[in-house]
Structures are given as C-alpha cells and as structure tokens.
C-alpha cells in the first residue's frame, strides 16, 4: 500500500476537520484495508474513528424508533434485543454478513459505505470499467454477478451493502455530519449512480461522515430473505427486504427493496403496488415477485437473477406472514 498520513480522532469534530479531500475514514477496516493493500484506494490521509466514543451505541425502543450510531459493530447490532424483535429484516441480514470475526470488527457505517465487489473495480478498472478501445468490461465480459436493472446505463455493478436494503425498507434516515454541520437524509439518498470513473457512488458531500441511522417505530411486519451461493462468508446474490403495514388482514402500505440487482439498493415500486390491498398468501406474494421482474434487463450471463428476484420477494413476503412454505 502507498504511504499516507495518519490521524487518530477522538471526537466527531476532530474527525470532520481531519477529513480533507484525499482522506479516508477508517473504522473496522475490513473493506478499506483490503482496498489499500490492492491499490484500489490510496488515501493521502487515514482518519481513525474507532476511538470516537460518541459514534458507538444503540438507543431507543420499538415504540419510538431506534438510533444506531455509525461506529456500532455488527456484532453489537446482533446482540440488540430490540433490533431482533422489532426489526427482524435488519437482524436477519446482519446475521448473514461475512463471518463472526468480521462482524466483531465491521461497523454499520463501514457496511453502508463499503465499495462495490465488482471484480473489474477491485482489479483497478474503476466502477465504469472500459477497455482502451471503449468496450465495457462488464457488458462484454464476465457479468454473472452484475445488475439486471438500470443496465441501459454504464454502471453495471451491484450495490454491495446488504444492510442498506432492510434499512431503506424500514424507512430509516441517516444523519451525516460534515464541515457545514449535520443533515439528515433518507438512507437511499446516500447513494448515486456514477456515469464515469471520476464520479463517486456516494451522494455525501466532501468531508462528511455518517453519524447515525434512525429507524422509525415498527408498525407492521418486516422480513428479509437471501439467495446466496455460500451459506456464509459471502455477499448475497439477490436479497429482498419487505416492510408492511396492515389494515386488518390486508396490506395498506408496502416497501419492497432488493439487493444484488442494480448499482443502488433497488426499490421495487411494482412489487409494492402489486401487494398493496392484498392479504399475504403464497399466491399474492408470487404475483408481487412476478411484477418486480417486469422491466428487468439482464446482461449476457445473469438471467438467473431474474428468477431469484421473484423468489426472494415471494419468500420475504411469506416470511413476514410467518409462512416459510419452502421449509415444510
């Protein structure tokens, strides 16, 4: 890795002041350190955040909402009774991130701001990887894990943060802190789609870091379902998180967000519309999955993700209703 300047921050204020252009914040280090070793990211300055005590912890309850500070370890999120009982969509997804050792190290903020796993990106060709004669490496090359939505554009990688998906489904808000002070945005507003290698996949302003994520009170049912190659130690192939509120037995409001299909967490408005005003049954859940797949444009090697998309939405909806029919 390239030489860099090191700053150990002990307060948010110090961290923000130290994060000048060309700097990278370091918390758990499970993504940044690997990127630095591979020369994918070569910051001039590294600002260490783990000693910032005001950035770690979970507070609140299911009735008023829960705030998770950005430096909180994933293992601490898993140990939270309120997360487990009120936000199973988030708990389940957290329990499937990487490995126990990584979850002891990795932070919520680091998960949300990890860089994509696209192998062309990780090999140094950028988020919009092109050959010298202008061919798109993912479109023309091995794109088995790439996006199936937004594929008319040039960002064909998939968004890497699995925790962003349940958080968006749950309507969570992110509080950022930077040189101009604090601001609060929807979690989905943390991300954008780059059109060239000089653009960032994050919609944060220079010098901003994540301070906390606040999940609103849990009013209905929520669940996640993942399809993956390996039981552990890997990112999901495709995953869906659903958050439903009910009027009697019927769904009055639905959020359906999908991982692994687009360069941002993919909100499926089509699936949300399809399940609204319905009772959750295997049939209605399947219809929502079918609706979500309309408009998908897979690349040459990832058509399988369209079937997975339908399945994970169906199963996430059925899980929220307590019907794990596939395990019977």
């Amino acid at each position, binding site marked *: 890795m390239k030489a860099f300047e*090191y700053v150990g921050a002990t307060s948010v204020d110090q961290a923000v002041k130290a994060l000048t252009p060309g700097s990278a914040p370091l918390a758990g280090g499970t993504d940044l350190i690997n990127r630095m070793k591979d020369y994918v990211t070569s910051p001039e300055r590294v600002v260490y955040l783990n000693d910032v005590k005001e950035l770690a912890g979970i507070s609140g309850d299911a009735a008023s909402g829960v705030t998770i500070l950005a430096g909180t370890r994933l293992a601490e999120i898993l140990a939270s009774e309120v997360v487990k009982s009120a936000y199973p969509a988030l708990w389940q997804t957290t329990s499937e991130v990487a490995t126990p050792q990584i979850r002891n190290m990795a932070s919520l903020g680091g998960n949300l701001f990890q860089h994509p796993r696209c192998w062309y990106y990780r090999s140094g060709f950028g988020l919009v990887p092109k050959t010298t004669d202008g061919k798109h490496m993912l479109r023309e090359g091995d794109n088995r894990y790439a996006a199936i939505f937004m594929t008319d554009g040039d960002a064909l990688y998939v968004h890497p943060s699995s925790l962003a998906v349940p958080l968006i489904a749950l309507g969570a808000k992110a509080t950022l802190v930077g040189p101009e002070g604090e601001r609060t945005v929807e979690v989905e507003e943390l991300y954008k789609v780059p059109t060239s290698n000089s653009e960032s996949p994050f919609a944060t302003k220079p010098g901003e870091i994540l301070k906390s994520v606040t999940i609103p009170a849990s009013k209905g049912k929520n669940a996640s379902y993942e399809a993956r190659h390996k039981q552990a*130690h890997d990112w999901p192939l495709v995953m869906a998180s659903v958050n439903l509120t009910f009027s009697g037995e019927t769904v009055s409001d639905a959020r359906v967000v999908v991982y692994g299909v687009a360069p941002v967490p993919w909100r499926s408005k089509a699936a949300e519309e399809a399940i609204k005003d319905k009772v959750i049954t295997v049939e209605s859940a399947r219809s929502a999955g079918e609706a979500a797949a309309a408009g998908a444009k897979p690349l040459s090697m990832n058509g399988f993700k369209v079937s997975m998309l339908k399945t994970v939405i169906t199963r996430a909806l059925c899980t929220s209703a307590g019907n794990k029919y596939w395990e019977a």
Partner: protein
Amino acid sequence: MKIQMNVNGQERILDVPPLRRLIDILREDMGLVAAKIGCGEGECGACNVLVDGEAVSACLIPAVQIDGCRIVTLEGLATSNDDALAALHGAFLEHDASQCGACIPGIVMTCRGMFDDLRNRRPSEAEVRGLLAGHLCRCTGYEAIVRGILKWLEMKSEP
C-alpha cells in the same frame, strides 16, 4: 507510531508504522507464529487472535487499532493452564480434527473466544457450523472439527 499493548499478559511498547498489520507485529516483531497468514483478506480465519476477548482477523487489524488493547494468541492460551483449552485439545485429538493443522490455531481461538457464550447454552450442530463460518480448512476436514467441538461442549456442560 508508538503503541502500547498487552500481549499474552505482558505489557509491550512497540514503535511501528501505523498500518502495520497485527499479524506481522505478532509473527515478525514478536516471534509469535501460532497465528498464520492465510489469505490476508479476512476470509480464512487462520490469523485469528483475541483482541479484548473477541476473535478477530489479525491480518485486517492495523497497529493503530490495537493501541491499549489486550491481545491473546494461541501461545498465550497454551501457557495459561486453561481447563477449557485442555478439554478442547482432548476433543480434537479424539476426533482427529487436525490434519495439516494450518487452520486449527484460528479455530481454537474462535472456540475459546466464544467459550463463555457457548458454556451457557448447548448450541446445535448448525450453530457450531455458523460459528466456524469464518474459517477455511483446506484439508476440508470440517466434519471432524465440528464433531470435536460438539464433543468439547458436551464435556463442558457436564457438572
């Protein structure tokens, strides 16, 4: 930068580059070679050590993160007259859990790190496999390792 840490019960002060990996500090600067360098990316678990009691991958931990921490390596366990470790050793021997042995130090650290939690409940085989999710055994000897750990936990839950 100067860092201070407690390694296997001894206070140490070292002057190291801020991003020198813990695994290199242990193996090269201190001669503690039980933790292995496998993948170097936090995938294989061969470099597992306990930092403040939690199992973590020493290949991903820069020096800055361990300033003021308590580190325990397998060498530290082996000299600490540890009944739980002796029982795990016995169970692994009985089930031939170690083949080439490269993954075993890391697995022992994970088991020892989780011991207090495991002692209070009898985890299922599936949970034990989940516990081992951060370890790769390239001899693919997982069955014997899982059987060894289940046997160890059986011994520990007896009065």
